[in-house]
């Protein structure tokens, strides 16, 4: 409709210019809505496929393969999984304990370290900052680290090995530090005059003021622990200490292992185990809490990215 107003070659401003611009905007909007929709669909489709496959009858999967929509709806996989959770339940317990302990301890230490490093009156803060930062530039590699944990710290097959190696991350310390340096120094100064010690200032004054950063970094740490499988791959062979993601990894790669796991948790030996749909159901159950919490925690991650995107 605006095209009828606009005449070619008219360079004037006002309603004519606006008409021309609306046409450009329309084109861009179409481009935007189409391509962004496409990208978003590509991002979500794999999840839908897993969900659909987990609800498909096993015989249909064997016959026709996984489909985007269940060829024949069935709850067999979930029924089996919830009836004989066995190992999966243990893995859930391990992951939850590791995530809770690791996040609480890691977050506290990250904040405490960051607080000291940003104290302007602390003479050696740059030296210590470099001491931490250098570890992101150079490392001894996998082997010495691995041997350190296995031979010297003797952590193989201990719950602690799933927590300790991921406890601190230099990047989080840097983000936390830059957040805390935005808290007015006068707070620390005046508390000191009132006779408060450094640790008390940190706990009673700085921690409450750092809540936004604590929430964001806490969630990053928690996500790291929840999704970790690598430390288990290297250090855990005791089945009772396997975290969820590693358990899922084992089950995906090993159908016999899955049968054994189902049988040992009480399923009847002769039972026909729907391995393919079960794999998908396990994936859903292992990811479930994240998918459920995701809509609520997503904004904290966005926040964290924008705090830390400039430097780091």
């Amino acid at each position, binding site marked *: 409709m605006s095209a009828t107003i606009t005449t070619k070659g008219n360079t004037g401003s006002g309603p004519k210019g606006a008409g021309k611009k609306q046409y450009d905007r329309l084109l861009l909007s179409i481009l935007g809505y189409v391509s962004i929709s496409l990208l*978003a669909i590509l991002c979500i489709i794999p999840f839908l496929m897993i969900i659909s496959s987990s609800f498909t009858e096993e015989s249909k999967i064997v016959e026709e393969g996984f489909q985007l929509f269940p060829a024949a709806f069935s709850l067999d996989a979930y029924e089996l999984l919830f009836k004989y959770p066995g190992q999966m339940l243990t893995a859930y317990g391990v992951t939850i304990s590791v995530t809770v302990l690791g996040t609480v301890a890691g977050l506290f230490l990250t904040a405490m370290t960051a607080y000291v490093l940003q104290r302007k009156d602390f003479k050696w803060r740059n030296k210590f900052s470099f001491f931490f930062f250098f570890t992101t530039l150079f490392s001894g590699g996998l082997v010495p680290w691995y041997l350190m944990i296995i031979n010297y710290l003797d952590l193989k097959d201990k719950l602690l090995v799933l927590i300790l190696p991921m406890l601190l991350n230099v990047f989080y310390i840097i983000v936390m530090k830059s957040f805390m340096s935005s808290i007015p120094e006068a707070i620390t100064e005046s508390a000191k005059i009132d006779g408060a010690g450094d640790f008390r200032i940190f706990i009673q004054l700085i921690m409450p003021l750092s809540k936004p950063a604590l929430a964001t970094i806490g969630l990053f740490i928690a996500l790291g622990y929840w999704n970790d499988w690598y430390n288990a791959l290297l250090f855990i062979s005791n089945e009772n200490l396997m975290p969820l993601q590693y358990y899922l990894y084992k089950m995906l790669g090993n159908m016999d292992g899955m049968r054994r796991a189902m049988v040992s948790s009480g399923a009847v030996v002769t039972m026909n185990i729907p391995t393919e749909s079960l794999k998908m159901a396990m994936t859903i159950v292992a990811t479930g809490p994240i998918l459920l919490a995701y809509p609520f925690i997503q904004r904290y991650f966005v926040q964290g990215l924008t705090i830390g995107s400039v430097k780091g």
Partner: protein
Amino acid sequence: MNRRGFLGDVRKYKTLLLMLAPAVLFFLLFAYVPMAGIVLAFKQFNYNGGIFGSPWNGWDNFRFFFESGNAWMVTRNTALYNIAFIIVNNALQIGAAILLFEAVGKWFRKLTQTVMFLPYFISWVVVGAIAYNLFNYDVGTLNSILTAVGLEPVDVYNTPSYWPFILVLVSAWKALGYGSVMYLAAITGIDTEMYEAAEIDGANIFQRILHITIPNLYPTVIILVLLAIGNIFRGDFGMFYNMVGNNGLLFSSTDVIDTFVFRSLTTSNEIGLSAAAGFYQSVLGFATILLANYAVRKYDKDHALF
């Protein structure tokens, strides 16, 4: 070096030093002591001797690593994959961020941003499960579709030549949301006065994007890309290991330094070789990150890492 002054400082900062102690201990144990373990690269490891007691064997581990041809293959794969990831991921993320900012409504932006961010939150194990769902020869969705339309099924897990494309796609898929949020933040920070001025001058929206939005993103892009280049010799172990695993058929096109080091350590138990390859990667990585930081420094001092 005033000794009394130093001790005085220690006393003065006693609490602060105690507060730092756990973190210092952590990095000593998990980073600095292992750094000393680099000597393993020049040793023939045995468990009785441990890191420091095993006998030296000079450059043998390195010689073996290089003469087997593995060194060149994994280095090439690591660098080429990272270059492809940097180009594809950044182009997609910048494009998506611009469209999210300029072209779509607020409600739609929030919704799609949430959806696109989702892959970032799942573990690589779950991504491995998705790949299995898609590419499995017998039951994979891809082959279900291909056979449904009368085409031959493809054997993805036996065909190395597909994997560069698959891995680039997977990487782009997982990083899209994260990266576009980051670039979106940079675009949101652009001074709106510039846009208003352009509007008065009669610029259309495409000219505006081309001449204002994109040039204003250059600093962010250059810094992020340079830092990514600094990590070009570090492979994403989680991704490669969960997508490919120990499938030797695919190694020619998928083996990166990190997976090679891991396998040498855990599967073939060649500790000296693994340490040598890890040391080689550390040195290479250290050199590139110094170079990248030097470049960032030249470009914009404020954004240099150090």
